[in-house]
């Protein structure tokens, strides 16, 4: 049996949602071990719904979600599922339950039965990874927006799940925090974790192995990041836009400047222009 997080023909309709189309329709995709899959799509396209389906917070109206073969809709197995899939939700306020920062981070692994002394090292390590060392005794609701977001990420890291699902984990982070998180994701991939990374920023997808795009609840694209960035897809229609550096490169070409390389950031543009 393959070890993966697997969505097969999944649909989801919120009760009393009030619009004619379900939030998610016939979604089939998988996240393997040691793989980063980026998930893009316009507001309301179904990304967070997919996230909630990934660890059994929601169960599909049709189709199945399986984690290493375990279905998410079996009440008896739900903790098996939750111990394998860590989720960082879009709004950290909805996730944070602890009364102080270190308790918040310890909460997940404690529930998994991690012993006291290991707990300490996991908490310290996770807080260090997101740059919150020193704030252990702070009350979470007194943190800034970005600090809360970092805390939510630390909580999921401390569980060391086989699959990590992140719903716009960098939306409130400064540029350094953002590259920290991308670095963490990279390292987790290298150590065998399967990652689903929801984002609105195409620049965030450059390090992904695959990219999925949702449109009105349906999967409309699956492929390599480069194919999406340099391909023929109508990005605007999908609620997407090229990263600023690529728009800059596009305008340079329009102004008659020759750029040979596939320019995607400052260094590749610089290289193309003055070597």
């Amino acid at each position, binding site marked *: 049996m393959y070890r993966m997080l697997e969505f097969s023909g999944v649909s989801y309709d919120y009760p009393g949602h*009030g619009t004619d189309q379900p939030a998610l329709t016939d979604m089939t995709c998988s996240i393997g071990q040691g793989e980063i899959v980026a998930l893009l799509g316009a507001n309301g396209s179904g990304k967070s719904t997919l996230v909630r389906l990934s660890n059994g917070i929601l169960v599909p109206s049709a189709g199945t979600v399986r984690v290493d073969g375990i279905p998410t809709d079996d009440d008896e197995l739900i903790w098996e599922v939750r111990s394998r899939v860590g989720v960082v939700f879009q*709004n950290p306020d909805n996730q944070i339950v602890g009364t102080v920062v270190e308790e918040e981070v310890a909460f997940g692994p404690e529930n998994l039965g991690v012993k006291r002394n290991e707990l300490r090292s996991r908490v310290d390590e996770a807080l260090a990874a997101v740059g919150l060392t020193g704030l252990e005794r702070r009350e979470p609701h007194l943190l800034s927006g970005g600090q809360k977001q970092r805390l939510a990420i630390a909580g999921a890291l401390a569980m060391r799940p086989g699959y990590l699902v992140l719903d716009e984990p960098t939306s409130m982070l400064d540029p350094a925090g953002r590259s920290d998180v991308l670095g963490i994701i990279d390292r987790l991939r290298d150590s065998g974790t399967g990652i689903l990374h929801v984002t609105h920023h195409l620049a965030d997808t450059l390090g992904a192995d695959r990219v999925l795009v949702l449109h009105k609840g349906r999967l409309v694209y699956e492929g390599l990041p480069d194919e999406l960035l340099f391909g023929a897809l109508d990005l605007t229609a999908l609620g997407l836009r090229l990263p*600023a550096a690529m728009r800059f490169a596009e305008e340079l070409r329009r102004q008659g400047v020759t750029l040979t390389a596939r320019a995607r950031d400052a260094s590749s543009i610089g290289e193309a222009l003055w070597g």
Partner: protein
Amino acid sequence: MGLKLTDISHTYAPTTPFAVEALANIDLNIEVGRTLVILGPTGSGKSTLLGIACGLVRPTLGSLALDGVNDAGVLVGREAGVGLVFQAPENQLFAEFVLDDVAFGPLNLGLGREAALERARDSLPAVGMDPAVFGDRSPFALSGGEARRVALAGVLAMKPAYLLLDEPTAGLDARGRDGVLAVLDELAPTTGIVIVTHDAEEFLGRADDVLVLAQGRSEYWGPVEGLLANPAPLLAAGLVLPDVVRVLHDARDVGVPIELFTADPVRAARILAAGLAKVRS
């Protein structure tokens, strides 16, 4: 005229062991017709400063004046024409239906119910939401980006003279971002706009002034061009130079004449192309 903050310092939980110094000695002028961007790393005091500027948080030290009226701490507020869009839009939504949520602000300003609903129906499309589709939905059963748009619409509907926005485009898709930028462009001449953002690329291109905060202190306050031409304060604050601006600096370093440093990708490309053409001729 204007919203003036003088020598503002703020400490949370002062005189307790948990005291946090969030701001120290900040001066700021917010003027109608000008757009100010506030940049700063996580926890540098940006949201605290917006809270103080709209009268939600009383600063530990320092004074506020709104349109010449001193100690606006008690005067400043939505009624007085300062609107704040919170960092977490969910904290701002409360009504049973989206349309009522958006109409609440205008109602509170003393508009009649019909006039308030009218404002709501006008401001929802401005953020890309069809009132016919979303008007009678619950604000708590929306996607993250939809919730942020509703929160924005609620503040826009009050037409405040001073509009403070805490990361207004975080979580918005490209169309939503363009929509918000278009609204801001439209309001800019008649509104004092303050934008807290991590997306320097998106906003520096359209701002007049910029404040760079680091650990509650001002590293820079002045015109955007000045900061982009000499970005040392940005780097000192632990922030990075937008990619586009970096290319302009690299170009100048290799001898390409650059007439102006801007973060707007299209304008920056034109400036670089002009410089390259000069080098060739």
